[in-house]
């Protein structure tokens, strides 16, 4: 029989026992729906986590340091690569080279220093860090009061909540609810504070006070001058945008370009005074942002080849991906259980159909139907139920996912959290759910179809 004829006869046969076949199809669709709902939530959660991590800047960042900075040595990198003394300096030329690597979005120096800030004539000692302008998309600024820096060199400052508390003298007591950021920001935003810092200025060689026999050594020389800069408070943020830097966490942020222009003395500067390539400023570390977390490894490898040490938490993303793969697997298995039950429904329906249509099968065989024609017909009926059930199930699963998402968001809103998209039905899920439904239905149809095909026509014709 031609495929079209098989399909036509199958649909006609399904229509003949419309109630039973509809119920079986609903069974399949419930199975597919549970699978789609489970996986859509799994995928949604995974995407939510990925979005959050992407925004946090943790997973698309490679931290580059020079091998000369022996503190950053890892045993692995010590063994593979040039010796520290022969390795290149992490200077502006190296930064530009890194920026030109494929998949690299930007590379900026990590500028941070401990300094004194005066507010209301009171000194406060803290870590200050330069923030690149691109950091405004960081989710740490989602709940920020005030605004981000107005330009890359604006004389502005953003405070972390804990420092704002310190400035206002509002220390949260243990066991008491946290202080609201909005309450902290109100008296601070628009106010000015004075940053006192050590500026590094290059000393000309003739001004060096060196013994005559050593004055020809290639080296750098700096003067350190104490400066003051007035900065305007523009924002107070709740979360910590600097969470990547465990011990050296900053609580006050200035625009990165401003921090560079101020030539604040860096810890590495002292070490560089003995550098053979002295004279050119070098960076302690560079933060390299890549297009996507999956590019991290390639970029890391390329930078390592250039002779630098790198660090990323790509391994953490790997284990996170693994976690979600396991989660999806479990959700998929639980979702599939309903489909497995539905497949038993298909077998039952088709076996019943064989009993009912025994005589019809006998007639078809008597007038020339082959075993394959009969088998194909039952197969097509199972497949048709799979298609209808699959499509209906995807629609149902999509709806269930939406309802769960809606319910979760109502709950989140009540708990004063922003709404989240915890549910996602990508096209591949829609397609594979329908295909899976058809495959499961066809597998369920295997036994009934071959049983129908094996029927003895003489016996079947005698059946009343």
């Amino acid at each position: 029989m031609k495929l079209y004829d098989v399909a036509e006869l199958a649909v006609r046969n399904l229509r003949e026992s419309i109630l039973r076949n509809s119920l079986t199809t609903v069974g399949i669709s419930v199975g597919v729906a549970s699978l789609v709902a489970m996986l859509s939530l799994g995928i949604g959660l995974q995407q939510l986590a990925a979005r959050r991590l992407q925004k946090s800047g943790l997973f698309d960042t490679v931290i580059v340091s020079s091998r000369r900075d022996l503190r950053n040595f890892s045993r692995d990198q010590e063994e593979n690569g040039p010796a520290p003394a022969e390795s290149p300096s992490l200077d502006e030329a190296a930064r530009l080279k890194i920026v030109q690597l494929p998949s690299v979005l930007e590379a900026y120096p990590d500028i941070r220093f401990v300094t004194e800030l005066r507010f209301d004539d009171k000194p406060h000692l803290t870590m200050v860090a330069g923030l690149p302008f691109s950091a405004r998309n960081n989710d740490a600024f989602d709940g920020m009061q005030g605004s981000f820096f107005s330009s890359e060199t604006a004389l502005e400052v953003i405070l972390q909540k804990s420092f704002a508390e310190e400035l206002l003298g509002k220390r949260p007591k243990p066991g008491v609810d946290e202080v609201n950021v909005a309450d902290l920001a109100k008296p601070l935003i628009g106010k000015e504070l004075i940053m006192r810092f050590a500026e590094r200025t290059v000393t000309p060689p003739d001004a060096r006070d060196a013994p005559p026999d050593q004055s020809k050594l290639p080296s750098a020389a700096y003067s350190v001058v104490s400066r003051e800069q007035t900065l305007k408070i523009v924002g107070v943020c709740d979360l910590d945008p600097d969470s990547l830097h465990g011990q050296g966490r900053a609580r006050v942020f200035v625009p990165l370009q401003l921090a560079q222009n101020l030539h604040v003395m860096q810890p590495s500067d002292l070490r560089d005074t003995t550098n053979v390539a002295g004279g050119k400023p070098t960076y302690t570390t560079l933060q390299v942002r890549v297009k996507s977390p999956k590019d991290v490894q390639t970029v890391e490898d390329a930078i390592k080849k250039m002779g630098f040490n790198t660090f990323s938490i790509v391994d953490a993303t790997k284990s996170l991906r693994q976690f979600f793969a396991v989660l999806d697997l479990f959700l998929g298995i639980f979702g599939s259980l309903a489909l497995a039950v539905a497949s038993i429904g298909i077998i039952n329906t088709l076996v019943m159909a064989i009993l009912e249509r025994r005589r019809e099968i006998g007639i078809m065989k008597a007038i020339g139907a082959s075993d394959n024609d009969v088998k194909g017909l039952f197969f097509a009926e199972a497949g048709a139920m799979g298609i209808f059930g699959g499509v209906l199930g995807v629609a149902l699963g999509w709806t269930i996912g939406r309802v769960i998402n809606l319910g979760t968001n109502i709950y989140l809103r009540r708990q004063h959290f922003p709404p989240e998209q915890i549910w996602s039905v990508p096209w591949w899920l829609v397609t594979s759910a329908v295909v899976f439904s058809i495959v499961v239905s066809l597998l369920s149809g295997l036994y009934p179809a071959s049983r129908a095909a094996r029927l003895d026509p003489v016996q079947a014709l005698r059946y009343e």
Partner: protein
Amino acid sequence: MSTGQSGIDPNGSIALQTENVCRHYMMGEALIRAVDGISLRVCAGEFVALLGTSGSGKSSLLNLIAGLDRPTSGTVMVGGRDLAKLSREELAKYRLRTVGMVFQSFNLIPSMTLLENVELPLRFAEVDREKRHGVARQALDRVGLSTRLRHRPTELSGGEQQRAALARALINQPQLLLADEPTGNLDSHTGTEIMNFIREFNESLGMTVVMVTHERVLAEQYAKRMIFLADGKLAEEQENRAVVNAQLTSGGGR
């Protein structure tokens, strides 16, 4: 038709031949010899009636000839091929292309219209939809059912259903028309109508007909030869001179 080595038409080509064919099966502990060593020959274009009481083996023999069943031993040769040696797929093709069957209980598929029932063998033969519609309409027209194409079998009388079954049996232009008690469920008037159709196909299309019946009068009226079976064995054969002569007179004999 001939039994054993004798035949009524020694010049006619053999349409079917059985050689010591047996169909035995077990029912509980008992061995049932439904067909027990029957040898017969049917020439092309013959009209043969298989007669006998219930359980004499006539329907079992017809099933063997139809390729619906396989013999326990012996051979069934149709068109020079031994049916016992055909695969399941080849047997299905044989039933589709060589044989047309008519049953006592009509055996139309109740969920299909008459047109769909009649064109069903053409679906199995993978004939295009347009072509098979035309052929099925013609076949139904031939048996006088052109106005009943969209009706379902349950909406028709017994005679009409059997006419539709005849149209279905003829749709693939088979060489062999096998009828199992074709008038068994019909009144005598409708039965005659059906038998006239079968005779017409036998005479005008040259189709070989093997009909199972227990009505001797019907066989005497239409069949050129009558074969009597008893206990699965061939009991007697009679040439029906009246029918042969009538055919010779009308010029329809072969």
